[in-house]
């Protein structure tokens, strides 16, 4: 009756293979771990998907 609604949001964490900079963004379909994704904003090297996880928000 008083329980809050839980919503899970999936996130993808990318890590630059050169400078190690981390970038967290929302998960998009097709993301799989260890695959190359966007370019690093800091050094321009390619990012690798380091983690995919869900965070629960209570509403």
């Amino acid at each position, binding site marked *: 009756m008083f329980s809050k609604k839980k919503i899970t949001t999936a996130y993808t964490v990318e890590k630059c293979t050169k400078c190690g900079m981390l970038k967290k963004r929302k998960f998009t379909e097709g993301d799989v*771990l260890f695959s190359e994704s966007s370019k690093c904003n800091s050094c321009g090297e390619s990012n690798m998907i380091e983690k*995919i996880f*869900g*965070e629960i928000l209570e509403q």
Partner: protein
Amino acid sequence: MLDFTNLDFDQLFGMKDDTNPLMMLVWILPIILFVFYGQRIQLYVTSGELKKGIKKLDSFRKESRNELIDYLKKNTSLEGDPVKKIDQFIDYFTIMPVDMDPNGIVDKVQHTVRAREDYTREHLKSISPQISDFELSKVQTLLEIASSLQMIYKIINHMFLTAKKQNNYPLILPLQMILPFIMEQAVAMKDAIPAFKLGQPVGDGIGPMVVGKMMLSCKKEIISFQTFLAKTNFEDRTLYLLKAEGPGSTVGRPADALDVITSDSKIDAIIMIDAALKMEGEDSASIARGFGAAIGGIGTERFNIEAIATSKKIPIFSIVVKQSVSEAITLMTKEIADVADDVSAQVYEMIQENTQKGQSVVIIGVGNTSGVPQ
């Protein structure tokens, strides 16, 4: 007519010797009612709770079936309408071999389970001949979920209806006791559907995630059905890294792979990394080390790994990441994903502690490898 405005309470509640007959009825009637109809009243009250649970189970099974059919229609090219065939698959049952004589039972169970898996795979291919192995593994997992939810609903509903039909309260008691646990599992299965549809890693994938990362720069080969092997070196030790073939949703066949490796090379230790069910009160994503084969499932893989290790006298070490049933089969939580590097460091520490230079170690990442390539 009885005048309720002029009651003598002392007399009514039997405080005097001359007890009111009405008071006697107030005491005696409920006693008679509960003696003869107590169980029926309890059955009626409990039925309400159970009906709510069964209604939820019914909605879960319908939801999982519809999700599967929608997924097939949207993501695969189908030959005809899949609904009839999917409904047949969902209702498929498995009769486990007779265990009166347990000799050879593991092989029989393994044969039955693998035959079912092979049959499902081939028939799903017949629905959609162009389906890729990646999509096929996802559909197969969704089908397993729908089939399990259907089976749970049928069994619980059967037990409930039998108890109601017989007006048998004791029969409904065990059902009332197990229903919260069943509901926990059913909710977890229902919640697992989006993760498998999107090909996301689940909590159970922590083992393949750790080993997959260790494999990244290595040359990989398929060693057994849906199972990858990579060979590498660490401080003068040879490491054989094993995991299921990702990013599809599969657990591979690590026992078959171990059999191939141990028949070709001398192995000095086996390290298994898996997710383990946490106890109530334990922290989620806590890491624990131990001995013995850390692998779940029906038990055949574990039996075969133990048999190989025993015959070759290879010690088995395990590292497990604790999590709940729900966490194990739904999208990996941040806490579990964050411990991957720590688990990896503990694996290397374990290798240093338990093996000498020049020795060989097999490291197995156990679990569903959905969303985790190598």
